């Protein structure tokens, strides 16, 4: 479904992504971990073309993301994205945040979009906040709205860019629960996170990155029990032992 073939990316002289090869299949939950600055987020953001790749081949549904002829807006409809800092629209209510793209991009009627929005709000457990503004919600609630906003487009793929990193510790659980439920339903998910518990429990596959390279790709059981790479061992020992 998502395929990286020999993808490189540079920021000027800085080599951010080095020869990335990765295939993500339908219904798979892939968790990307690694130290800060290892290129995890950049790789994720290439998938919906928020970042452009320098060379190599990146396809979603066999459509080349970097190709100038590709209708990028059409491609993005099918890929929901959740950001570290939520990025809800502050001048719109929760409901308007969720219905905007379905109305403007998919051409849904207001009534239909509203029904869909309420359905997903229910699903993420905050239907009663439909008329609130984002600033009136807690971080965890805002992030759940952001997830509902992504889901309302009925995407086949959801990208999560450190969705719990900006949250109070107490709020992390509620967001992870929503993500777990989503994974169980068979959503194709790519998640950049530091939540090892989540990775262990939900991931079909863990991708470990360091310095722009994918160093290791394994099931959670394999990865945690027996990481092959020294760097992965070091990373795990540092984050698991405190």
């Amino acid at each position, binding site marked *: 479904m998502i395929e990286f073939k020999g993808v490189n990316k540079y920021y000027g002289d800085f080599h951010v992504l080095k020869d990335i090869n990765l295939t993500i299949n339908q219904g798979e939950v892939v968790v990307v971990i690694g130290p800060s600055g290892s290129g995890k987020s950049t790789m994720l953001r290439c998938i919906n073309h928020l970042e452009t790749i320098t060379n190599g081949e990146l396809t979603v549904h066999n459509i080349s993301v970097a190709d100038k002829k590709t209708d990028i807006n059409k491609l993005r*409809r099918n890929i929901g*994205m959740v950001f570290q800092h939520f*990025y809800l629209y502050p001048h719109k209510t929760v409901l308007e945040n969720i219905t905007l793209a379905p109305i403007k991009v998919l051409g849904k009627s207001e009534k239909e979009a509203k029904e869909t929005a309420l359905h997903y709000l229910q699903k993420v457990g905050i239907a009663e906040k439909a008329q609130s503004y984002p600033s009136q919600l807690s971080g965890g609630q805002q992030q759940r709205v952001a997830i509902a906003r992504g889901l309302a*487009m009925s995407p086949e793929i959801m990208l999560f860019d450190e969705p719990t990193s900006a949250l109070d510790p107490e709020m992390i659980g509620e967001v992870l629960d929503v993500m777990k439920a989503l994974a169980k339903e068979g959503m194709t998910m790519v998640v950049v996170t530091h939540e090892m518990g989540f990775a262990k429990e939900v991931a079909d596959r863990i991708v470990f990155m360091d310095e722009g390279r994918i160093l290791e790709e394994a099931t959670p059981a394999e990865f945690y029990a027996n990481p092959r790479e020294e760097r992965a061992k070091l990373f795990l020992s540092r984050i698991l032992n405190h």
Partner: protein
Amino acid sequence: MLDFTILTENFDIYLEGYKTTIIASLIALVASFLLGTLIAVFRIAPFKPLNWLGTVYVEFIRNIPLLVIVFFFFFGLRFSGPVAGATGLTIYTAAFIAEAIRAGILSVPKGQMEAARSSGLTYGQTMRLIILPQAIKIVIPPLGNQFINLVKNSSILGVVAGLDLMYHADLISSRTYVTFDVYIFVALFYLSLTIPLSLGVGYMEKRLAKSN
């Protein structure tokens, strides 16, 4: 003491000019706002030739005296006084408005653009529905300053036979040989426009701040 007979005896003439000042200011206000917004979007659009066009416009226009721009339309293109004045004002003020709006747009977090674009909205839709409505709140105070400047700068019409307040005051002054009093009344007429404008901007600022 002020000679109020200057005002009462020439009230119709003052009013005639006052009307033109208001009309020219209103036209220039609306037009410069639209043009300024367009130029601001040009300056930040993800398309180099537009950026270049926007930058050239701003750097060129805001570094020329308003009078020279008005003369260009009046003597150069042979526009009538009021039209040359209003056009010059529009072109000139738009450069400053563009800068104010650009600063406002840039102050909206980048993630807003990314979130909207990643949901499939086009660049234009994102600007119109997400970025500009947020930018406008930030932009209102500097925009208000530009509008107040615009009303005062409209006195430039007086120099090109623009039939405005200043032009008619010049007529009264040259007929009565009174200078001081005539222009004091002119100042009062301008204040009657700029003070409500100032209060209006303050009110909008408060109201928009509340809606956050």
